[in-house]
């Protein structure tokens, strides 16, 4: 293994390959980014990005939108980072996903099965569960989350039991057909996964999702356009490598995967695209 290279992870979102980012910045002559790196480490968002690249905690910190950091400066900078255009765009995707699940539930007859894959902290599933408990107590909706991280799945199981949410969690690789629960789903939600896959793997994942949907079932997923400053900082300071895609590219992948009815929409910043693919009846 070459010097400065750490082992390749099976987690596609963990893109960091450099053992020491400051050393790499010095080697590449990007000394101006050293203060940014160390200041970034004082913020919860920067620290998570630097240590675990595109982790579920990184995404969920943006979704939650509650600043945290070391010392007062870290806290204040974290709040400003959470207000960046790219962070606002990323936050919008989980809100859209939650709305799409709620729309599916209100439009369909029971029982309904929804899968989040890879589910990360499954914020949208927990919020839909709370919404069902509050406003639609008698609906038969089965929410399920799947993630490759066994430790996370155990944590989610505990949380689900504590909240009485009824969400089931399973451990499995989103790119392996055998890992999926056996039943077919009315809705499959996937946020922030294909952003770390190349087009071939992304299309393969879309095909798997298509195959796991009931006829008429909906696939809800996201894609992101690059925000130049955020991308520059994330690549250089956090080693976070993202696959950016336009709405047209996402539609192309969905067509390749066999989706017949495809729609996309963008958030207010124009950076985030949501794709809805429907499997033919």
């Amino acid at each position, binding site marked *: 293994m070459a010097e400065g290279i750490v082992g390749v992870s099976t987690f596609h979102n963990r893109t960091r390959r450099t053992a020491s980012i400051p050393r790499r910045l010095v080697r590449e002559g990007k000394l101006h980014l050293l203060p940014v790196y160390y200041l970034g480490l004082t913020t919860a968002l920067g620290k998570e990005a630097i240590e675990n690249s595109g982790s579920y905690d990184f995404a969920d910190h943006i979704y939650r939108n*509650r*600043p945290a950091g*070391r010392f*007062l*400066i870290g*806290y*204040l900078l*974290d709040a400003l980072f959470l*207000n960046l255009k790219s962070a606002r765009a990323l936050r919008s995707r989980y809100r859209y996903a939650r709305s799409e699940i709620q729309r599916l539930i209100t439009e369909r007859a029971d029982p309904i099965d929804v899968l989040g894959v890879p589910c990360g902290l499954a914020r949208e599933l927990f919020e839909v569960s709370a919404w069902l408990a509050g406003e639609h107590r008698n609906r038969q909706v089965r929410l399920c989350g799947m993630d490759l991280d066994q430790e996370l799945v155990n944590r989610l199981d505990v949380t689900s039991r504590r909240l009485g949410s009824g969400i089931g969690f399973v451990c499995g690789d989103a790119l392996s057909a055998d890992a999926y629960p056996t039943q077919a789903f009315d809705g499959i939600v996937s946020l922030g996964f294909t952003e770390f896959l190349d087009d071939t793997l992304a299309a393969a994942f879309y095909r798997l999702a298509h195959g796991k949907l009931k006829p008429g079932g909906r696939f809800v997923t996201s894609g992101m356009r690059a925000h130049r400053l955020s991308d520059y900082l994330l690549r250089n300071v956090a080693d976070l490598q993202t696959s950016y895609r336009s709405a047209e590219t996402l539609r192309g992948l969905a067509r390749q995967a066999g989706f017949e009815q495809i729609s996309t929409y963008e958030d207010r910043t124009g950076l985030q695209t949501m794709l809805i693919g429907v499997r033919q009846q």
Partner: protein
Amino acid sequence: MAELVVVGAAGVVDDEAAMIEGTLAELFRGLGIGGAFRPATDAFFLPSSRGARIMQQLKGLKREFVSPLEESGIALASINRHEDFFARAFGIRLASGRSAHSFCVAFGLERLTAAGLLTWGPDPAQWPKALSA
């Protein structure tokens, strides 16, 4: 000092500066650090003549978050609107060809540290939870 610089179209820069000012005031309040944003006149990039100071105040180019931690108040953060001063100096243009506008938000690191210690004391266990992430 830690400083973030925002560059863009005049309207976008004005909106972002206003948003950041509101966010910071709310964050300081939420942490129990008193104070408010006030106009200031010592922008680092402008001449210090009386006329320049008056113009600067009229245009609200510099605003500081002043906290009453000591008798005269102490500025913990400031927002400095540069208009197109730096964009002209460095040739930064928008896609339309017009000069960009910019502002910076600056934090005094030692002052923030002092403010934290004076507000919550020296024991990190007593600090707000959000500051120990």
